[in-house]
């Protein structure tokens, strides 16, 4: 009996000793969680990576004391729109709206239109497509509209027909103020309407990866000469600028950057003014989100002043209609035909209503 007890005691003792040693060894030698090496994070601090950008604020004001001027604004039709009136699907429905629920294509000139109306002027919209022009024996629709207004704005000159562009040239020659929004892609229209004045646009857009308003496409443009268009402006933001120049003249705005087509660095003209015509290589500054970026608000005010301070002849197409447009001119009964489809005036809206169209 004693022998079995001794053996059992030895077994238990050895077992406990073994397990104990293993347990102690586990604590001492076990594979504990290793310390994790640190990763350098200084470069991720917000102070190091927050982008610089333009300031935002100010008001859009007009200096002109003119009143009751009428400005015709040409917008491309939805089918031919380029960079304007982007459609956004409504959440939870199959339908779509144009950007700015209360506005359509006119959103692309919303800030300018509301400024003009707020200062006592009238704005009409012209949305005819390129297919609509003059036919034999008839005056073009645009000529009809231009006969009754003081200024003309287009943000898509390339979508106007050659006949329409010729009418715009005539209108400017007769004292009508014209603004050409020459976004990238509008070369043909800009040259066609601007060439008599030496104004031209080059293909491509200017960008700047070093100094910009939070995107390489959003370049800063600065005045480069004396012009009412640039009064009070230090710099403006163009979110997609095309080179626009005038032969033999200093451009009114320039920007430092690189041109996409040639990849050449340099200073590029992005705006030109010749008498009654102003062409800028960007229209994004007219959009409500960009209207108060840097000095864009000042530019919009200056542009509005430019548009309403012209002195257009009483009937700019009376003489040219008979030459360039056979059979056109005064319809039976005297006077030009009244505005037809394709226009809608908002001049009777008060400024608050007008602003509501720009989201």
């Amino acid at each position: 009996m004693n022998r079995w007890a001794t053996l059992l005691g030895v077994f238990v003792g050895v077992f406990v000793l073994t397990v104990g040693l293993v347990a102690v060894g586990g604590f001492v030698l076990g594979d504990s969680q290793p310390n994790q090496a640190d990763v350098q994070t200084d470069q991720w601090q917000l102070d190091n990576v927050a982008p610089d950008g333009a300031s935002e604020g100010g008001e859009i004001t007009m200096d002109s004391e003119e009143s009751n001027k009428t400005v015709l604004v040409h917008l491309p039709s939805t089918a031919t729109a380029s960079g304007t009136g982007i459609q956004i699907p409504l959440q939870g429905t199959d339908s779509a709206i144009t950007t700015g629920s209360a506005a359509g294509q006119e959103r692309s000139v919303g800030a300018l239109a509301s400024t003009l109306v707020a200062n006592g002027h009238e704005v009409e919209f012209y949305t005819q497509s390129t297919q609509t022009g003059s036919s034999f024996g008839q005056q073009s629709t645009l000529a009809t509209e231009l006969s009754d207004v003081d200024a003309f704005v287009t943000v898509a000159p390339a979508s106007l027909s050659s006949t329409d562009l010729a009418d715009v040239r005539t209108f400017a020659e007769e004292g009508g103020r014209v603004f050409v929004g020459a976004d990238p892609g509008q070369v043909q229209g800009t040259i066609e309407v601007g060439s008599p004045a030496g104004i031209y646009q080059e293909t491509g857009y200017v960008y700047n990866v070093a100094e910009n308003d939070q995107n390489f496409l959003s370049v800063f443009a600065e005045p480069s000469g004396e012009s009412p268009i640039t009064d009070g402006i230090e710099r403006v933001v163009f979110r997609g600028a095309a080179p626009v120049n005038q032969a033999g003249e200093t451009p009114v705005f320039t920007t430092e950057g690189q041109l996409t087509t040639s990849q050449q660095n340099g200073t590029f003209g992005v705006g030109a003014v010749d008498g009654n015509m102003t062409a800028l290589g960007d229209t994004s500054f007219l959009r409500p989100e960009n209207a108060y970026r840097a000095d864009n608000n000042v530019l919009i005010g200056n542009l509005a002043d430019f548009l309403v301070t012209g002195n257009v002849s009483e009937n700019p197409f009376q003489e040219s209609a008979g030459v360039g447009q056979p059979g056109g001119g005064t319809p039976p009964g005297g006077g030009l035909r009244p505005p037809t489809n394709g226009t809608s005036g908002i001049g009777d809206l008060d400024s608050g209503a007008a602003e509501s169209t720009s989201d």
Partner: protein
Amino acid sequence: MPVGPLDSRRGQIALVAVLAVAAGAVLAPQVYSSTSGPDGTVAVIELEGTIDESTAQFVEGQLRDARRNDSIKAVVLEVNSPGGLPAQSERIYAAVERTSQQMPVIAAVDTLGASGAYLSIVPADDIYVAPSAQAVGSVGVTGTAPQPLTPSAGDTGPNKGSTHPDDARANRETLANLFLESVMTQRGDEIELSREEVSRANVYLGTEAVENGFADELGFVSDAINDAANRAGLDSYEVDTRRAEQQQNPLSSLPLQTEDGRVVVGQDQKTLNGNLILAVAPQYVDEVVPPEYEVVYHSGEYVPEAARQSGSSETAPTQESTAEQGGDEK
């Protein structure tokens, strides 16, 4: 009383000898391997396809295992990726940096080491590229172009469902700067281009990348393995290759798939999640898109689906190109 063989001294010596041989035989493999086996292991970890959550989990896990496994003395990253999600690329970046503090880590790029993939490997001790590698670099991010706020009475605030263009533009630039700063922190001394030039997000051929400092050596995975072993002081080594399981759809967790099966990469397509910004080289994503998907690139104006189907897309911007890879037609 008979005398047994173990009762004699000679017999006891023989028994002890037999036990010693048996004990030696048990230990022999360990002794043999310790004298004749490799000095350590070089782990080759695959970084393949678009970088999403599963990619980051796999590479991060493998690198963690390498750091904790005493037999692994060096790591080689075998890279072929056009990038993916920025944060997941940063996860891999951090894991590579941690590992490189403990052992040599070398990346090897055959064809694609672009955008988020380049961010992932930029902390490596060395980057090898094949001379004909086609896309190394692309330091930048991409996503849908900023759009005006979309009104919805279903949201409790104006920014619940969409982001103001100014904020979207700033967020995108911040993500790009995070990427750029990481690259310049890790390789600012090697890259011979200015910060502005790097921010152009260009992709370089392998031979160009070695010249401008985006990469260090011309070579392939086997060169990287040999270099890593030498840096770890391994006279002899074995290679342990760790490949991710083949993903059924490498883009499954990226927000690139539309409801009708199209995969869209670009700047102005509303069917994407407009708020998610990607660290991808868009021009190379179709490398990893399965054949049943259609790849549509948009860099210009959004063209409504109805207009595309009605054939009026001829008025669409010329930047649009469509590469259709119909699975049924194959």
